[in-house]
């Protein structure tokens, strides 16, 4: 009458497909990953805006960070806003070289589409931003994106 069911069924769940699932997740993250490019040495909270445009193709974008040095570096570099290019502090005179170093990595036909993303803290005064803008104009890098986050309603 009552046959022991437990004896018949195989209690184990097959884990054979587990690696596949994990690999799928892995590939997803590998694709969306942008490896952190060095340490953020300046504190940047970008302002809010509404008329935002997405930046296409990460390889065509270079970033200039402007903000006050983080606490760790405040002792050495002071509390005045500074420019960070790549992973080090810089001045606006280093910008042409920085742009050139990025440009040689980009295939020639795509070079006119290079955009500079200005990640500037909202509390920074326009003086330093203007200096950077002038340097960009002199280096003929005219496509610029003022990085901002969507405005919270």
């Amino acid at each position, binding site marked *: 009458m009552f046959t022991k069911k437990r004896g018949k069924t195989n209690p184990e769940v097959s884990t054979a497909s587990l690696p596949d699932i*994990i690999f799928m997740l892995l590939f997803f993250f590998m694709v969306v990953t942008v490896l952190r490019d060095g340490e953020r040495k300046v504190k940047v909270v970008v302002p809010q*805006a509404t008329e*935002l*445009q997405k930046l296409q193709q990460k390889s065509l974008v270079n970033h200039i960070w402007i903000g006050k040095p983080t606490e760790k570096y405040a002792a050495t570099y002071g509390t005045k806003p500074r420019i960070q290019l790549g992973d080090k502090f810089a001045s606006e005179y280093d910008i042409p070289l920085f742009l050139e170093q990025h440009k040689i990595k980009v295939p020639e036909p795509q070079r006119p589409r290079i955009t500079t993303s200005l990640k*500037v803290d909202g509390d920074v*005064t326009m003086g330093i931003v203007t200096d950077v803008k002038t340097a960009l104009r002199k280096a003929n890098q005219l496509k610029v994106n003022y990085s*901002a*986050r969507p405005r919270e309603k």
Partner: protein
Amino acid sequence: MARTSSRDRMKNEINAGSMADIAFLLLIFFLVTTTIDIDKGITVKLPPWSEEDPETQKLKKRNVFSVLVNAQDQLLVRGELTDVDDLRERAKEFIANPQRREDLSTDPKNAIISLKNDRGTSYGVYVEVYNELKAAYNELWNDECERMYGIPYSEELPVAYRKAIKEKIPFVLSEAEPTNFGEE
């Protein structure tokens, strides 16, 4: 003698049980290093640099919408102290000039927005002002697009459509060299 054929030995599979662990390890590595930052912002085109002084153009006063931002982050729009929240509406009215007023632009094609700030202006306010002016144009483009093609304006629109709209309402924003009164 028990003969083990080579085929029997082939059946010995490599234990794939640790495969998941390896994949997990890699997964966790990528999870930690990942920054999914949404790179968004206001795209602008800077004017090319030239050593010579630009030609001075005589412009009709009514066609210029001057916006000045001082080091105290106050806004002076066409000589009046204005709040940032009113800027968008005023700019729209100036560009489109629906009532054909004498003191606003003759035509959207002739309208010029002149933005001038101080070296002491905070970047946050500058972006806010820029954003409002851009928003004014975006709203006008949207209206024009609805009128011409019956669809809202977006960047995905065919190039010809966008060109036609921008020919009617070109985005002209001239930025003057900033003054230097308020920088620390």
